[in-house]
């Protein structure tokens, strides 16, 4: 087991290099560079940017640029952003990272407390009215695009009812301690709901399907036959088995979460990694794109590793060699 984990960690390194090469190659394959989208201010001549391109080495061949960038990382620096003049990539990411983490955790929290119990309930009483009701609701959640749902909740809960703030992460820099915490949570509710909506629906469906599967399997029949109570069967056997695919999903949730975050963050003007990422992709701010990709890559790889480890904990029959 330990050997397995160590081996998986060692595989990280070549994988990250591969990932960075792919992403760098892709980013470079697309036409345009950090300055090509900025022109069109007639007060600023197009020629002005030539010197800056040269300064950044953008006129060099792609492999040279890659090595230049990678060697900086090896020295522990992601370099400086191009769009955000005079900012290190680290500082930009640090500033936004926590916002997205809060948002993601909050969304996940909403997802889990809603999806798991409902999923279990539906599986225990399949084809009941409530099952159909939640199914329909779940698919409603899936069928509504993120940006649109965001707009609807802003309209209802912020503009019409005035319960929650519509935009941003905090009202004032003057808040501290508990007041700041409350204010942040208050700002998280609408974007959290929006981001959590789609995954709530999927988790509900998965949970229902998994629990139903397990409930139908032999060992549950056996347990029931032996006279175990329904609840005992559910909690001792069923859930444990049903959790396996859910864990797989959780391990992979990071990528989609970021994808959803890009749109949600935009609707709520929530300054997180998602908006930084898409802005940087569009502006060809390579240092930022690469840094976020790498960090996300690490997070996803670690997430999947953890999921694999959990597998073997939940289901001891699974062996790794």
């Amino acid at each position, binding site marked *: 087991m330990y050997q397995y984990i160590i081996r998986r960690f060692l595989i990280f390194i070549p994988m990250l290099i591969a990932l960075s090469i792919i992403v760098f190659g892709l980013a470079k394959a697309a036409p345009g560079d950090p300055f090509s989208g900025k022109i069109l201010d007639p007060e600023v001549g197009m020629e002005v940017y030539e010197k800056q391109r040269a300064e950044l080495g953008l006129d060099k061949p792609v492999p040279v640029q890659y090595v230049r960038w990678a060697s900086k990382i090896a020295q522990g620096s992601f370099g400086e952003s191009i769009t955000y003049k005079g900012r290190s990539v680290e500082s930009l990411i640090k500033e936004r990272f926590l916002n997205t983490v809060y948002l993601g955790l909050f969304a996940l929290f909403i997802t889990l407390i809603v999806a798991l119990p409902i999923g279990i309930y539906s599986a225990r009483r399949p084809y009941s009215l409530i099952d159909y009701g939640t199914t329909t609701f779940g698919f409603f959640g899936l069928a509504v695009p993120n940006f649109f749902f965001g707009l609807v909740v802003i309209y209802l809960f912020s503009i019409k009812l005035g319960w929650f703030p519509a935009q941003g992460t905090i009202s004032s820099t003057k808040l501290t301690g508990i007041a700041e915490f409350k204010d942040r949570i208050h700002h998280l509710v609408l974007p959290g709901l929006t981001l959590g909506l*789609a995954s709530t629906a999927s988790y509900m469906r998965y949970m229902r399907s998994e629990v139903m599967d397990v409930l139908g399997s032999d060992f549950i029949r056996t347990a029931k036959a032996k006279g175990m109570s329904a609840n005992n069967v559910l909690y001792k056997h069923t859930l444990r088995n049903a959790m396996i695919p859910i864990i797989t999903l959780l391990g992979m949730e990071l990528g989609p979460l970021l994808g959803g975050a890009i749109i949600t963050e935009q609707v709520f003007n929530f300054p997180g990694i998602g908006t930084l990422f898409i802005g940087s992709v569009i502006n060809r701010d390579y240092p930022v794109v690469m840094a976020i990709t790498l960090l996300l890559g690490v997070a996803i790889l670690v997430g999947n590793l953890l999921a694999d480890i959990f597998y073997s904990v939940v289901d001891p029959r*699974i062996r790794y*060699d």
Partner: protein
Amino acid sequence: MQTLNEQDINADGHVNGSMRKHRSPFQLSLRRFLKNKLAIVGMIVFFIIVASAVFAPLLTEHDPKAHNLLKVEQKPSSEHILGTDSSGRDNFARLLYGARVSLTIGISTMVFTVFLGLVFGTLSGYYGGKVDSIIMRITDLFLALPFLVLALTIIALLKKVTVGLFVVIIAVTSWPTLSRIIRGTFLSLREQEFVLGARVIGASDFRIIFRHFLPNAIGPIIVNATLLMAAMIIVESGLSFIGMGIPQPTPTWGNMISEAQGLRILRYHPEAWIPPGLAILLTVLSINFIGDGLRDAFDPKSDRR
């Protein structure tokens, strides 16, 4: 499914078909499916949606791409029963023709993704070991590869983004999730007694995979596939929202709903977003009910027999 067509006992070991001995499992499944009222309703609704997409030209005389700049964002009228959009195009015609594109995207991405996910998930989960490690590392790479960078690059390199290309981009970036789920299920099946039994009596890999493993994974696969289909229609609208979807004037439900980017449309023009929203919802729901029906009918582990 054709593997279930034969006279074998179902793979998972519990023989409960003693009183229906003279029917093949496929016939049994079909019977079960046809008895499922919701699945039938789902079939009918889905059929209606597909039919209205196919026969769109018969249902409206408007051209979904034809603009009328003198009638922009009009309320519903007898001429335009769902009003017009921001370029003065008929919303009803766009809804019908949009179904063609959206259904194509939804269905073909789903099929493509499920295929890729199945192949890799099966190889990985069944054989385990080295094969598993390699495939899983590849899925890791794909999961870590940001969809946006990939999509942006490809779109930037091409002069025209077609629906087919769109499907490929999405499928190539979405299969790892499904293959991981299938692999997870297979990994635990691998250690179960009946598989061991099958191996002992000398069943081929192919036979074990198709007879014993796949039927057991059918539940999660169907659930996943229905979810995927819904997700794909939505993904297209999300991409439209950030300006990377199927470009105008081609109508899709996604870019119709993404017209509602501001409070004006949301508040004053519900006729612009309710119909495509409802269309997506109905499609997704009907596919789900069909999926549930299939799952109940074919999944050997399903409770509802």
